[in-house]
């Protein structure tokens, strides 16, 4: 147990080092990197992914996964746009978009818990289904005539600072999630579920109810990210945030959360979010296109699982050798 803890601490320490190194490299590569405006661009660019990574962390720690988040974001964005276009007030459109997200998450959760189906498969299906519904709702159109009061949510900054409004939303959510995961009973129950589902059930945890709630939460938060995304680009399109699920899963795994559940912390994930943001920002400053950037993110995703695996294997080999050496000495 102690060794496990030190391993986690070293992973997060590694992330801090990585963060510092990427900031240094960024400031060396471009004189604009450390400017206030670049900080604004960098953070507002990643906030939707950051917000969706919070519930994703909880879901993966509980041993499940939700690959449909980016599709829910797109669907919510399209619903918002359609309702605004057809003359409904903005608050109504936002509320409806959030409701659609909660419902989409509820359907995911229902299929995963009631039918005991793996979330991996269900959410690959709903990834296609929700994105497809977004196309059905809006076709190849886009809604873009949103009021400034709404788009300020995406563009605007707080007071005279360079902090975007979406950054404030993320900060508040992050604090709530940290309290729930690391300082509450439900948080510890999530780790228990991820470590051993059967044992968790026998110790009186309502595993299915927890998982259902997680998927509903994930859907709702993805819809919230959809509202922010729509405001930031002032555009509701069915292909909004296409493929973002990759980046969300990447930051969570890079943050040191075990893909098989039961291990990980939000501190690591938050660090990973900023590392990814800086990486994307630097590549952007170097004029590397988004399509090629995703090559790097894909690589990062694989390495973030492959790296710890190889490290663990080396550790096993070393301890085995040590044991062998120790026993031969005794003989």
């Amino acid at each position: 147990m102690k060794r496990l803890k030190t391993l986690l601490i070293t992973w997060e320490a590694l992330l801090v080092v990585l963060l510092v190194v990427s900031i240094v490299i960024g400031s060396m590569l471009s004189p604009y990197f450390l400017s206030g405006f670049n900080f604004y661009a960098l953070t507002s660019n990643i906030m939707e992914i950051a917000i969706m990574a919070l519930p994703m962390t909880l879901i993966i720690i509980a041993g499940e996964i939700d690959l449909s988040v980016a599709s829910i974001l797109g669907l919510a964005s399209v619903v918002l746009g359609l309702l605004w276009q057809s003359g409904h007030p903005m608050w109504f459109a936002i509320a409806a978009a959030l409701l659609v997200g909660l419902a989409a998450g509820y359907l995911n959760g229902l299929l995963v818990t009631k039918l005991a189906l793996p979330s991996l498969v269900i959410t690959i299906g709903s990834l296609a289904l929700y994105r497809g519904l977004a196309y059905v709702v809006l076709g190849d159109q886009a809604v873009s005539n949103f009021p400034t009061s709404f788009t300020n949510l995406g563009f605007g900054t707080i007071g005279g600072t360079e902090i975007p409004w979406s950054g404030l939303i993320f900060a508040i959510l992050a604090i709530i999630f940290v309290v729930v995961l690391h300082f509450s009973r439900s948080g510890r129950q999530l780790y228990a579920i991820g470590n051993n589902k059967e044992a968790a059930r026998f110790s009186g945890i309502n595993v299915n109810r927890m998982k259902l709630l997680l998927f509903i939460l994930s859907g709702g938060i993805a819809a919230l990210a959809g509202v922010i995304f729509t405001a930031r680009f002032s555009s509701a399109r069915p292909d909004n945030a296409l493929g973002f699920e990759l980046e969300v899963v990447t930051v969570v795994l890079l943050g040191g959360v075990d893909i098989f559940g039961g291990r990980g912390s939000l501190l690591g994930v938050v660090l990973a979010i900023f590392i990814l943001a800086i990486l994307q920002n630097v590549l952007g400053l170097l004029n590397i296109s988004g399509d090629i950037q995703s090559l790097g993110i894909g690589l990062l995703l694989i390495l973030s699982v492959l790296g710890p695996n190889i490290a663990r294997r080396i550790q096993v080999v070393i301890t085995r050798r040590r044991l062998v050496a120790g026993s031969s000495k005794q003989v």
Partner: protein
Amino acid sequence: MTTTGQEVEPAKQRNQVRQARLPGIVSRVRELGLLAVLLLIILIVGIQAPRFLSLDNFTQILLSVAIIAIVAVGETLVILARNVDLSVGSMVGVTAFVTAYFFKELPHINLLLGILLGCALGLLLGIINGLIVSYGRVPSIVATLGTLYVFRGLVFVIASHTTSQVNASDVPADYLALATTQILGIPALILIAAVIAIIVGYFLHASKSGRQLYAVGSNPAAADMIGIRRDWLVFWAFAASGLLCGLAGVLWGARFATVDATNATGLELQVIAAVVVGGVNIFGGSGTIFGAVLGAIVLGTLQNALNILNISQFWLQAIYGAAIIGAVVLDAFITRWLRRTILSRRKNT
């Protein structure tokens, strides 16, 4: 009822045999059901639009399905071994682009050489997937989600250093003829897909490795225990998937003639939908190549029907998603039902 020890043993064995047959029964039920669904679609759409029933239209459907079917055959091997390959669309994309560009640059080169190049490239990509999953111990969903983007990024890198698009006029006519040639009145594309499905289907059914693949998928731990080289088989399943994607990419370039860096994006969803709709259990261990190809044909027919009935193509992706979820849910119900009937039968005897 009193039983002696000697009587219990054969009864136990019978039950074990029955349980072992369970996945087989499930897939047979699924394939028959799917055939019925296919006939129903043909009947309903045929009544509304008679031109749907023409021989020409059926050929069109099979043509549109052929490439997806080839990829689905490889995907079936991977899924049977309780894994998944999400990178197929990107692998087809890479090989289609590279092969087309190869023919553009060297128009007088031997046709076979280009085909072999595409297949070898696909095999290489598949081997990379296999290494990461089997020997790097990265869950296949994460590994191939990663390579989906890495391989796609690779096409963009290649395109940015060469050409943004290869057009039909750039490549030799021989290459394009791959997709249009007919042998005995049947398009070569359909024949190639059929031959591959038959060969791989026979291999799965009759060869030792084929049977072992089912064993790995239905119970990995037990497969390990009886000495099956699980990692080795999973590795080759991924390699085979890559190889078939390579071939599919070569044919993709020939069929669509105009190839850019985004070609075959999202193909993985169509392929996985076809495989699971075809009754291949997404948790591995049961399903057939015939089922997967049938699944591809059903989805292709559905797409064609939407076209003919003038229903928006925007519905397609939603239908694929619903088909994946529906097939998995249906599988869960059938398995549960079969298990219950077998259990009750066991209680009665």
